[in-house]
């Protein structure tokens, strides 16, 4: 562990090290293998914070935005805020995501330090995660103006939950944004200026895992081919003991809604989730988890687990997931759309996917069949 921290320290001192640092952010990187969630988060946060001085290259931006959008660990989210300070161009979504992160962490603020890797009581002048987020907003100045109204609303409605220090930092941030020249609002067509994940992957074939054995929430056993071939499919990944409510719990809730939308639109499609944690997520657990999130189970709407290793699924869809000694230690959001012949036609990764975009992808996959 300390070798890894020493390597990050070394990279921090070297010029042109940013790309190697980005390589350490992939969930399946050896940097995370076998670690617990806390350690994985610590490594990630330490690497992210390094971009403040190393510079944030474009390929590092999705990792930063993901953390600001979905992260619930104050240390890692604060590190993402620091990373943004190293960006040459501010991503359009960033200011709104910074404000959202402040809102999300307002009841769980904590002291953070990126000067040394090992956790421990702060040395002098402790700084908290919310302070880091506010300082990044202030530093963005004119570029963060689109988020000013949302920040004002947050401070007016939730001001009592911030410490005096954070309140002062937020006031400084608002002044910096107010004083800035007007700029066009970011994200012309997205909700609150925040865009969702867009399909990124090139088509690939999932037919190689057609024979892979699966088990659904009712204990029915079937192959990957039997579960998904013949109809377009929206397939996502989750596990029931995920600690971040913005990830798996929300994913399955949105999956249930997607299934209802398909039905309402008369779209004959499969909507399913496969767990990363097959040994723990047995059928009864899958059924309870789905039912609690309003999944209307049917032969087109299922939660499943692999009966053998998960590796073939991870390799086929290039999933961003890492494993600790017992369960998942870190994962990104992944949703793939398959056509009826099990070819991947779209993949949404890392950021929250929008239901309309997935429905469009399913309709396009259905058209492939019609043609």
């Amino acid at each position, binding site marked *: 562990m300390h070798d890894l921290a020493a390597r990050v320290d070394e990279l921090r001192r070297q010029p042109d090290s940013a790309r190697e640092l980005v390589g350490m952010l992939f969930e399946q990187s050896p940097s995370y293998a*076998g*670690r*617990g*969630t*806390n*350690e994985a988060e*610590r490594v990630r946060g330490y690497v992210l914070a390094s971009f403040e001085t190393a510079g944030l290259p474009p390929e590092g931006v999705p990792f930063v935005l993901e953390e600001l959008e979905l992260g619930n660990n104050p240390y890692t989210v604060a590190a993402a805020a620091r990373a943004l300070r190293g960006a040459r161009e501010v991503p359009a979504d960033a200011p709104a995501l910074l404000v959202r992160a402040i809102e999300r962490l*307002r*009841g*769980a*603020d*904590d*002291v953070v330090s990126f000067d040394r890797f*090992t*956790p*421990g*009581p*702060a040395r002098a002048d*402790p700084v*908290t995660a919310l302070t880091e987020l506010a300082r990044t907003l202030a530093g963005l100045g004119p570029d963060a103006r689109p988020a000013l109204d949302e920040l004002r609303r947050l401070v007016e409605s*939730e001001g*009592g*939950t*911030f*410490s*005096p220090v*954070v309140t002062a930092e937020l006031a400084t941030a608002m002044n910096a944004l107010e004083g800035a020249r007007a700029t066009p609002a970011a994200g012309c067509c997205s909700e609150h200026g925040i865009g969702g994940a867009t399909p990124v992957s090139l088509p690939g074939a999932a037919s190689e895992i057609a024979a892979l054995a699966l088990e659904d929430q009712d204990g029915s056993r079937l192959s990957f081919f039997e579960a998904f071939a013949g109809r377009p499919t929206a397939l996502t990944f989750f596990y029931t*003991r995920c*600690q971040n409510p913005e990830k798996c719990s929300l994913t399955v809730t949105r999956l249930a809604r997607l299934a209802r939308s398909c039905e309402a639109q008369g779209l004959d499609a499969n909507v399913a989730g496969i767990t990363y944690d097959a*040994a*723990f997520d*047995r059928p*009864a657990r899958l059924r309870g988890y789905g039912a609690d999130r309003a999944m209307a189970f049917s032969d087109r709407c299922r939660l499943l687990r692999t009966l053998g290793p998960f590796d073939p699924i991870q390799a086929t869809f290039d999933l961003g997931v890492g494993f*600790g*000694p*017992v*369960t*998942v*230690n870190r994962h990104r959001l992944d949703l793939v759309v398959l056509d009826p012949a099990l070819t991947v036609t779209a993949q949404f990764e890392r950021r929250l996917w929008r239901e309309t975009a997935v429905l469009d992808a399913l309709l396009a996959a259905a058209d492939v069949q019609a043609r």
Partner: protein
Amino acid sequence: MDVAKYRERYEAQLAKAATSAEESAAAPLGEQNLEEQVPDLLATLQNREEPVASRTAALEALAALDFLGPRFAPFRARYKEALRDVATDQPQELRAQALELLAIDKDPYAQELLVQGLQEPTDALVPEAQAIQLLGYDDHAEVVPLVREVYERATGVAREEALRVLATDPESEQLFTRLLKDKSEKRSIRQLSASGLQSLNPEAFDETARKIVADDDDYNDIRATALAALAHGREARETPVDPKLVETVQKVGESTRSRSIRSAARRFLQSTEQ
């Protein structure tokens, strides 16, 4: 004695005995001026010159205030830093409480201290059993391989705590099955194994539990536990009624002299009628 008078006298004694920090803690939480009170409590907690009783009372008051949620949010970062500060402090009771509060939040620093204590028992800040219990609050920690090792060497309460942690580890399924079947094991270990196995693999638990229920030579409390768990599992998973199991339970319920088994059998049979 008149209950009202007794209560009055008891409350007067309580009020007299309270230290200033305890008084703060006893006041209704919603009425407290946190801006004044929390800094005082934090100062008392971190002041090594204060008596341990006052510092402990301050810690307990802060822990209670933490339940106020949004009202306590402005102080939460300072509170957690104070807990980290006293987690290695001299008074054992104080540091144990601080470590517990941090461990509930899955605090990495507290986890590191606890793991160090398990690896080097002479430097441990809390007893082995408590360290395992506190680390068990985080089922995503990398502590399970260490706890498997500790289980092998531990005795008494520490061994039981290790089993509680391993109940989230699918690789421990075989261990729980073996312990549950082993009549020479302590009953507490077998009961923990029953709940561990039922959590990890309900179907495997059912299979083992059926054998235990039908085994007249096994201990009555273990048989009753197995039977109650079978009933609960059947209800929770809405599994279909198995006539063979119903027949076995009927026979066991009629022939046993144990009240606990009769009661568990009745509950199981009722669950099959619904």
